[in-house]
């Protein structure tokens, strides 16, 4: 009579168990494929009023991270591993010319994918940044990625053809500031804000939003020393330990101030202009500007420091602020970059390749043996 260990081993290596688990995982995937995942109770109440609470109660709102699903995948992994080890041993016992290692490779590939996914899920980091020309971000390897040019190309129909971020990768500034912390997003506040502002002030004057042609828009600043890189959708910047993706693209409106000599200053939120007795700091819009092309005149909110006395000033285009004229709003592109560190993805990729190779090998051998 078989011992309990033999029976457990026999159960775990069974193809019937594998097929049964595949069906169960498929049923879970169907539920997760029908019910939108990771939404709030309000969402389910508005879309599925009768079963909203059941969805949440049974964990169907996060089914792929629910305990039953993870337990199924764990059991499937054990089944796959035991089956693979058993099968591999059986195949090795055969004469070399009769061995079929396709299924073994496929199964090993799947096991590698599962373990790679677990490791990736535990260690992967992802950060999203929105940067304008001249702004920078600190990369995971302590280097600085500084935007030097952003260009948006469009087809004749107005449809977006490409978004391109041109940047340099340079050493961080020697003087320590709060933005020198690793992985911090670029900003224009503080001393580095002034450095960015110097770059921004050398911007060519942007055409007004209404006069922009759909063909191509580009902004650029003088290029500091460093490694030149280009980031586009489907052409991310891959560096050791992390990858930078062109993930999104936005347009932002910036107030344009003109001084008495006619010198133009364009201000991002947080930018400051030094004045003889203090500074003018652009804080924010009183209300969000309307989408591109819409007639808007939101008030811009400035902090004016005059000999230590600080006032909040809300101005519309045409107004005056402490010796400057608020001439107009300009539109600037903002590049949405995603920085991802996923050191286990190569393992997942290796698993995918192994699984693919194993699948092909399995069925090429089977088809050769089929007498159809």
């Amino acid at each position, binding site marked *: 009579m078989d011992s309990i260990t033999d029976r457990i081993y026999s159960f775990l290596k069974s193809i019937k168990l594998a097929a049964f688990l595949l069906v169960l995982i498929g049923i879970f995937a169907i539920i997760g494929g029908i019910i*939108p995942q990771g939404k709030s109770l309000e969402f389910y109440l508005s879309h599925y009023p009768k079963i909203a609470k059941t969805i949440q109660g049974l964990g169907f709102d996060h089914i792929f991270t629910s305990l039953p699903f993870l337990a199924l995948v764990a059991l499937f992994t054990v089944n796959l591993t035991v089956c693979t080890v058993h099968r591999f041993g059986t195949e090795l016992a055969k004469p070399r010319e009769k061995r079929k290692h396709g299924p073994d490779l496929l199964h090993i590939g799947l096991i590698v994918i599962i373990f790679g996914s677990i490791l990736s899920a535990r260690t992967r980091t992802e950060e999203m940044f929105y940067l304008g020309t001249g702004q920078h971000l600190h990369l995971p390897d302590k280097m600085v990625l500084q935007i030097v040019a952003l260009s948006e190309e469009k087809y004749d129909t107005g449809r977006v053809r*490409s978004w391109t971020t041109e940047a340099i990768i340079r050493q961080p500034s020697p003087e320590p500031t709060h933005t020198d912390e690793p992985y911090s997003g670029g900003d224009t506040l503080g001393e580095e804000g002034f450095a960015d502002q110097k770059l921004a002030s050398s911007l060519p004057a942007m055409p007004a939003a209404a006069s922009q042609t759909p063909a191509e828009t580009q902004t650029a600043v003088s290029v500091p020393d460093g490694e030149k890189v280009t980031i586009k959708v489907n052409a991310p910047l891959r560096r050791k330990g992390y990858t930078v993706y062109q*993930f999104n693209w936005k347009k932002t409106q910036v107030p344009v101030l003109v001084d008495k000599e006619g010198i133009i200053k364009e201000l991002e939120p947080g930018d400051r202009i030094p004045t003889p007795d203090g500074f003018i700091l652009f804080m924010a819009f009183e209300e969000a500007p309307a989408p591109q092309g819409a007639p808007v005149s939101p008030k811009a909110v400035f902090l004016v420091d005059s000999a230590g006395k600080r006032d909040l000033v809300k101005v519309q285009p045409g107004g005056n602020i402490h010796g400057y004229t608020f001439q107009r709003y300009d539109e600037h592109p903002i590049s949405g970059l995603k920085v991802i560190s996923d050191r286990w993805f190569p393992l997942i*990729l290796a698993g995918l390749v192994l*699984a693919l190779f194993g699948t092909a090998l399995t069925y090429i051998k089977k088809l050769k043996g089929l007498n159809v």
Partner: protein
Amino acid sequence: MIATIAFGLLIIAQILQSVSLFRTTAKDRISPWLALGSSILLLITVIQRSIAIKFFALTNMYESLLFLAMLASLMAFAITRWKPTSESKALPYSLNILAIIFLALASSPIAPSTIRPPVPALQSGWLVLHVSFTFIGEIFFAVGLVTAILQLTAKTEDNRKKFDRLTYTSIAIGYPIFTAGALVFGAIWAENAWGRWWGWDPKETWALVTWLTYTAYLHFRLVRKNTSKLMPALVILGFAIAMFTFFGVNFLLAGLHSYA
């Protein structure tokens, strides 16, 4: 216009095949060539659109349907040249119908034929591999669907075995191609474009369900051989899920693939 001529050729082929179904003696020698002609015309349309958008024309529902119809009509021709299936009338007949359905859908409002160049996310060689391999795999699954139905309705044991073997063969060819296209190349493209290789997007999830169904079929067949009706039923279910993944997800479930 060229696609309309292709559609016309398929309709004529369908009529000839329908007549041939009722005539046991005469063999229909014309319709396979009409199907091949239709396939070539559809290929020309795909090439024309590719030149117009300066990218491989597989970036929206209309182009996908044209490509699928092209593959189905090509398969309707190829199946008549392959010895094990050359005598079958049901296979080219069904594949012809499938090609006609795809073209009819392409001319419906669900698939606007406006030529639209691809947005940045779609401009990737991995996308072309992802979509084309997935569709090629699915056309083999379509062959499996027909043979599975024939297997279920076969009156003799010999026929059942013959159709079981054909079903298995078509799935065994389609499965690795589909795995490569839908899952492997799709994952590589997603990682390259969005920085994540898998995100449980509805389309991804349903592609996985399709893959799991055919995987379950291949495993069940290992243990239950060719006597069970469960296996052809799984193949029929698998194709239904594959078609839901293509059509249903686009129109019923929101996700990253909403442009496809």
